[in-house]
């Protein structure tokens, strides 16, 4: 059952396949847009509390978030690598059988790691615009979860053009890296590596 969500192997590209239609992407895209808008509007309307649940072992919520986000980026790099291997883009490496499992699980872990971060961001800080970094971060944060929703829902639909999953995956990866650079990287560069 699970195997059908994987990307098509390039060798299986068959000229007599049924017509592939990007219109299948409409519902996932609408759902993703709804997610992004919901996060942004909540972040804008909800009055930031400045506090949320702290995690033991770290000095502040900001450091927890910086480390969680960094861990998510590490798993996202695994995502990028495993995707390149699966699509045969790495010369000399044919995808081992466990690549798909690696890709799925690294993605799930990366996503779950981002959830506490976004909850804290939205509940304690909100959608803010007071500097370019913060504005970029706020927008990218909303788009990231929207794009991730589109990617997940797109995986459940068969018969879409081959470019859909790589584009969506690349978009999610890029947004996560933008988020990381505008938050955790910025934080570590100012405060140093601290827990």
């Amino acid at each position, binding site marked *: 059952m699970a195997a059908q969500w994987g990307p098509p192997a390039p060798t299986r590209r068959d000229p007599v396949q049924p017509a592939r239609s990007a219109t299948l992407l409409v519902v996932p895209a609408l759902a993703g847009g709804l997610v992004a808008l919901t996060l942004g509007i909540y972040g804008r309307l909800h009055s930031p*509390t400045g*506090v949320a*649940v702290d995690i033991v072992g770290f*000095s*502040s919520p900001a450091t927890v978030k910086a480390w969680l986000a960094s861990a998510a980026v590490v798993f996202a790099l695994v995502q990028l690598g495993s995707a390149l291997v699966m699509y045969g883009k790495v010369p000399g490496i044919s995808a081992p059988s466990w690549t798909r499992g690696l890709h799925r699980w690294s993605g799930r872990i990366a996503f779950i790691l981002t*959830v506490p971060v976004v*909850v804290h961001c939205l509940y*304690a800080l909100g959608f803010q615009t007071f500097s370019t970094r*913060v504005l970029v971060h706020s927008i990218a944060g909303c788009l990231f979860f929207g794009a991730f929703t589109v990617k997940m829902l797109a995986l*459940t639909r068969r018969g879409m053009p081959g470019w859909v999953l790589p584009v969506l995956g690349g978009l999610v990866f890029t947004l996560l890296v933008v988020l990381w650079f505008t938050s955790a990287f910025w934080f570590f560069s100012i405060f140093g590596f601290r827990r």
Partner: protein
Amino acid sequence: MKIPTPVITLIVGVALAASLLFSSMTAVSAKKDALAKASASAAASASAAATASAAQPTATPSRGFVVPAHANYVGKVKANEGSVALVVHDNFAIAYYCNGSTEEAWLKGTPHDGKLSMTGKNNASLTADYALGHARGTVVVDGTAHIFSIIAVHKPSGLYQSIATVRGATIKAGWIVLADGTQVGSLEPNADAAQPSAQAAPKLDIPSLTARDGDTTLVAKPIDAEIGSGF
């Protein structure tokens, strides 16, 4: 019908987010209760000791906001690079406005029922309303009014001050560390003057609470109502 695994991933994420949001809300309301209790008991002991403590900032005034007895607020002012910090500790409040260079002001005042009216040198003034989690108002520095709407913060965000005497002059520096960790600070090289001038403060190292001003090491202390520092 079997639920596709990517949808399960989304559901797990939403469930985790919902539970974290719920526990955050519980944590915040528990904090609210604790603050209300603390200020209620403070009010009780204060009225036992001194009868005329009318300005006691206790919980829940008529407007329906919870007014904390101890709170730190920081944030940027509107349409400007300046930031403002507001620290309320029982019957005393300290505020600081600075833009990281020549404009800054220290202000003092007495809170009353979630309202503040503060004054400082150079005719600086500040009026604000504050409640649990949020404060808003206007600060006038060097003849310019700045409107602010700022949030409650905890260490390491907040207000820091350093006062040092170097070669007979009092150096007074202040830093505001915003909720996102960015800091803005100004320094008065001669704070005893009637109209002290200001310049950009050196960067404050938060872990060590020190800053280097030329060959002088400035030692800062937090002005933090929650830990009672600086009052």
